[in-house]
């Protein structure tokens, strides 16, 4: 009798175990399936573009000619954002990890994290209504005095809704990402390295250059790459801030466009081939950000075994 009860409970428990582990496995596989189907569905919906007559594509010269300027625009906007946000982010992270008074450091960290909590559409509205008019004055001055440099070529935009403004807004948005990741890495620097440098008579900056930065270099690179991934895919800030147009070298005149903003601005009214075009553009964006993110993750995992105290 006792044996039957034993086998009975074991049977019930076993099925519970099986169901639960099966459910978790299914959820894990579902995530892989979702990512895979993102690629597949975008591909299926974008296929009509490949077979379409080049003259029917927007611009009338085929998909490559259509996508090229907005790929360049996307990269330029993200590059401006990164050029501004990386040094600034490293500075802020150093401030929080090594310079700020210990008592306030965590509070300062929260304050910078607040930047990440503000929705992107609010940044877009802010860039549109506050930042762009402020920068327009500076652009007029740049066009007058440095107009011989191609990127500052006039006529400067009167509204300030230009590529440079969009890049600055993007920089503000990726700043918290770069800051929080770098901060984590800086805090992981082995204390003994820092103390050894200070004991040798190094100043604080020399200690940071000799002990902290070499230790954190892969972390900083991957933080910047993750920031780049965010900046490449950011939509609303660019859609609201940039007054788009054809590709141009000048960053302070209106013109240029990014993939994400192009989709957001045109998708609501699109149908038929235009819809496929925009989805194909989305696919291009997906591939670019996927590549950037994978490289960043690869750098992180490759250096994982070196982080920590050694």
């Amino acid at each position, binding site marked *: 009798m006792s044996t039957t009860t034993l086998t009975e409970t074991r049977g019930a428990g076993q099925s519970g175990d099986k*169901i639960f582990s099966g459910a978790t496995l299914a959820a*894990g596989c579902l995530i892989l399936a979702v990512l895979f189907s*993102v690629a597949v569905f975008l591909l299926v919906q974008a296929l009509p573009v490949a077979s379409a007559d080049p003259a029917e594509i927007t611009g009338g010269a085929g998909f490559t000619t259509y996508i090229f300027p907005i790929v360049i625009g996307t990269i330029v906007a993200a590059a401006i954002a990164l050029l501004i946000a990386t040094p600034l982010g490293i500075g802020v992270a150093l401030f929080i990890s090594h310079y700020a008074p210990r008592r306030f450091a965590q509070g300062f960290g929260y304050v910078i994290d607040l930047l990440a909590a503000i929705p992107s559409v609010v*940044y877009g509205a802010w860039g549109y*209504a506050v930042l762009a008019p402020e920068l327009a004055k500076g652009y007029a001055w740049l066009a007058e005095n440095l107009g011989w440099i191609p990127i500052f070529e006039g006529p400067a935009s009167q509204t300030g809704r230009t590529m440079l403004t969009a890049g600055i807004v993007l920089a503000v948005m990726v700043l918290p990402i770069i800051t929080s990741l770098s901060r984590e890495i800086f805090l992981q620097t082995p204390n003994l390295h820092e103390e050894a440098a200070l004991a040798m008579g190094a100043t604080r900056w020399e200690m940071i250059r000799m002990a902290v930065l070499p230790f954190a270099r892969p972390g900083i690179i991957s933080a910047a790459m993750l920031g780049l991934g965010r900046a490449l895919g950011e939509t609303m800030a660019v859609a*609201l801030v940039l007054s788009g147009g054809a590709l141009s070298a000048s960053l302070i005149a209106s013109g240029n466009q990014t993939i994400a903003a192009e989709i957001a601005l045109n998708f609501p009214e699109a149908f038929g081939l235009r819809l496929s075009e925009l989805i194909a553009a989305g696919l291009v964006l997906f591939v670019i950000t996927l590549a950037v993110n994978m490289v*960043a993750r690869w750098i992180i995992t490759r250096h994982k075994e070196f982080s920590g105290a050694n």
Partner: protein
Amino acid sequence: MTSATLARRQSSLTKGKLPSYAVWLVLGAALVFGAAAASLVGFSAVSWGLFSALFFLLGATAVTAVVEGGRKATDSLATYLVYGAFLVALLPLLSVLWTVLERGLPGISYDFLFTSLNGVTGAVDNASVANGTPVLGGAYHAVVGTLQITLWATAISVPIGLLAAVYLVEYGTGGPLTRAITFFVDVMTGIPSIVAGLFAAALFGLLFGPGTRTGFVAAVALSVLMIPVVVRSTEEMLKIVPNELREAAYALGVRKWRTITKVVIPTAISGIASGVTLAIARVIGETAPILVTAGFASAINWNVFSGWMSTLPTLIYYQILTPTSPTNTDPSTQRAWAAALLLILMVMLLNLVARLIARMFAPKTSR
């Protein structure tokens, strides 16, 4: 004793050092010279700040270089730059918050919170500007849409994310599948939000005919963005549950799935809940996926399975880019900023709730 020794000791320690008030002297001088230089090119707060910062950096570094030497000068220059980076990073935050408060507060009213934009046309806005009457129409439909879509996205992502994290931590054996899921969850975190929107639009376009736009499509798009965040935070929380708890349960003969549901998850529940709340805070402000999946509505729509829906972010976007009345944009701008204030308050509240949850339900072990 010796004021003589005292004086000598001070001098031996502080020899070749700048007194602590030197920085403030240089700063004062930089502000004065900055004002002078700024008035040469046209005085404004921005040019004053720029010139003062430049003069301060040059002046302070030069003074340190002369008195304390080159290495100290580099050190102090780095210090000023690092402090400066933090101050510069604060500028946009303060500016955004101030702008939203200043322009959003006048628009917040009972009518704004509890009426929709249904029937509010350009003529209505023109009339309210011409007669000086309060702006009509509000964001009620958008608040309803935001809550509905976010709720559905949460209902989809939390079970999937939670179970996947349990698989990774409790069942995963470090094999190829575990590594693939970990890697692609990381990659998924970086999917541009608009691509997630396009995915949901393409999926439902194939299933239910092109142009299918409902709140549910938007919820699917948002859960693509939300699942990886839930997985990551849950995974971190499950990992820090002490192994002794699991072993104690196994030693009592408890099944693995009972151990997980009765011991592991309750121990980590505070962290999981706050991670989920942060994930909600992240997707509630998403605009781009909603734009391509839920369309835009001005009437209240409680049904996520049929009809277009509006959310607060899309309301802000459309009110700024295509004002209700093209000739009088002020009412639309006012509504947009009021909606922005409402949205920021919601996000901040969620962040605060997440911190409170994490603190209140923290496990009581002292490990």
